[in-house]
């Protein structure tokens, strides 16, 4: 083996996805520089009439919402005793934990004075929805870290410490799951509650006193959809061994949840006499229908087909549609549905996209390595075609 070959083997192989991630990280690095060295006006297209943009809409609202799978699965397994979901419990908790980590990192970009992020701990305003959200997110991120911690600590080489920790963890686990479920339910809905104060400005297709309920009801199926997608990818590319029937069981839960959400939206629109806006020729209405089609109609039709429920790849793409619909909903509420009243047309700057994408990419990379090196999912023994013939040892 020449020196060149030796050096080359020490570096990772260049593959398509690695290139993509590298490009995203490079762009993210520049965005970090733009945001923290050059300031908001260089890094973002935010203005006074549009003070919250992509970092809130995608980073926070979608980030928190799509991380709802962890609490739903944990509550199902520990509180409802649905043991059949236990094999995917750790994965879903890990996804949620990493999701909340991206939200916390995103906060550093989003806040004007991020070094004061601790202020809500000591400066209280109980009348603020955002205050409640910030406390719930802080506490729930801690809960998730604790829920996930055994996966890391069980790798400790010191048996006594390990056993002691795991015993302590076992004794508080149910309390953790209970607290996590309540905290999640609170802040998932309060994220919608943030927009209750925009009465008269948020488009009538979205503004409702039940924004809280809407956010809660849509977060659970979307969070579960993300869990299904992640597990499918683990099976496909990380050699994980999961009974695919579990995924189709989860999809059987998603369908009624989405249907319930759809019915709620419909009843609410009728109750508020807002149905007139459904057939107007305007951008907001168009986006509303895109959202409803992706989040409710298309997934319900697809999940109704046995072929889709039982084929992991079809299921994966159905979940991708749900996630896209969910993201459309959150971005509609936080950006597009406020645009008519603010009279500015906000299009995020590329650095805003890059910062969000880099944070998400970091979470995906962390997830990948966690699944590879920790006991998150059982793995198949390495198969023949993946074994790289090792170079003969040098004499």
């Amino acid at each position, binding site marked *: 083996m020449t020196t060149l070959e030796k050096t080359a083997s020490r570096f990772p192989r260049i593959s398509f996805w690695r290139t993509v991630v590298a490009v995203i990280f490079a762009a993210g690095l520049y965005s970090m520089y733009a945001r923290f060295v050059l300031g908001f006006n260089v890094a973002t297209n935010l203005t006074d009439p549009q*003070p919250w943009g992509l970092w809130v809409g995608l980073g926070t609202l979608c980030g928190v919402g799509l991380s709802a799978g962890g609490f739903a699965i944990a*509550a199902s397994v520990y509180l409802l005793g649905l043991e059949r979901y236990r094999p995917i419990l750790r994965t879903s908790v890990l996804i949620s934990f990493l999701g909340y980590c991206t939200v916390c990192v995103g906060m550093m970009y989003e806040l004007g004075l991020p070094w004061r992020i601790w202020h809500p701990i000591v400066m209280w305003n109980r009348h603020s929805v955002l205050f409640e959200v910030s406390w719930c997110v802080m506490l729930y991120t801690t809960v998730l870290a604790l829920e996930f911690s055994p996966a890391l600590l069980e790798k400790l080489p010191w048996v006594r410490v390990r056993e002691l920790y795991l015993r302590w963890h076992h004794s508080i686990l149910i309390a953790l799951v209970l607290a996590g479920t309540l905290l999640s339910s609170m802040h998932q809905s309060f994220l919608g509650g943030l927009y209750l104060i925009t009465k008269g400005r948020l488009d009538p297709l979205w503004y409702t006193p039940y924004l809280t309920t809407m956010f809660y009801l849509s977060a659970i199926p979307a969070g579960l959809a993300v869990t299904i997608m992640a597990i499918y990818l683990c099976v496909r590319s990380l050699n994980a061994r999961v009974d695919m029937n579990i995924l189709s069981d989860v999809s059987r839960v998603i369908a009624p949840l989405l249907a319930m959400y759809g019915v709620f939206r419909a009843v609410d629109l009728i109750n508020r006499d807002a149905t007139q806006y459904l057939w107007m020729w305007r951008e907001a209405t168009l986006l509303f229908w895109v959202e409803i089609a992706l989040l409710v109609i298309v997934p319900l039709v697809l999940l109704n087909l046995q072929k889709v429920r039982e084929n992991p790849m079809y299921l994966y793409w159905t979940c991708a549609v749900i996630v896209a619909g969910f993201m459309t909903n959150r971005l509609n509420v936080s950006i597009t549905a406020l645009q008519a009243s603010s009279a500015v047309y906000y299009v995020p700057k590329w650095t805003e996209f890059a910062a969000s994408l880099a944070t998400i990419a970091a979470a995906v990379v962390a997830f990948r390595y966690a699944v590879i090196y920790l006991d998150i999912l059982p793995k198949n023994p390495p198969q023949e075609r993946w074994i790289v013939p090792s170079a003969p040892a040098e004499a």
Partner: protein
Amino acid sequence: MATTRAILVDITKCIGCRNCEQACKQTHGFPLESEAKLSPTALTVVEERGDRFVRRMCMHCEDPACASACLVGALKKTAAGPVTYEASKCIGCRYCLVACPFSVPRYEWTKLAPLVKKCDMCAGRQAKGQPPACVEACPAQASIVGDRDDILEEAQRRILGDSKYVKHIYGSDEAGGTSVFFISDVPFEKLGFVAAPKQAMPVLTANALGDGPTVILVGGALLSGLYWITQRRALVALAEAREIATKRRS
């Protein structure tokens, strides 16, 4: 403590001299160039709408949306009337900008340690018994300051006494009532005034927040109950399995 102070702006009297803008900038130490829109260095501006001049500034709501929204309580309605901003508390979340029904607060987007900027009705000056700088500078008495009740009464007297006025005091019920009032002879919607909800904005979120404790209590009880059932079923199943095992052995 003095009673709540309020400002009345009579649009029919404004001559568009922009002395209020200048006085405001001087008091706050901002550069003196006139600006077209509210900005971090223009906390009040006179906008031209047709042949009328409309002064824009913080409305100093009685129950302000911004103060209810601010998670660290940096924005507060003071007993004297002004809604003030404590910069040292602010974390820069900008929820106040989202919450304000009048779109008043401005953010220092160009700074690396940006703060929120909005009119504070010269709370410092008023505490010393001086009128707000803008009111003091007005040569036409288009802006006057006084106790809120007296100011409202004066506004009432003017719009009832002269048929040219629109029969509405803008700010009397907008966002549940404010401490800055406008009267005009041109309909307010033609002057760019927003049709703000006629209710105190914090009520909108207070209802949802009020559900919090219920969610915790009812949800907590429900989940604990479900866990108890789960636990119980597991125990029963275990006991049954043991019974079967002992029977088989004997």
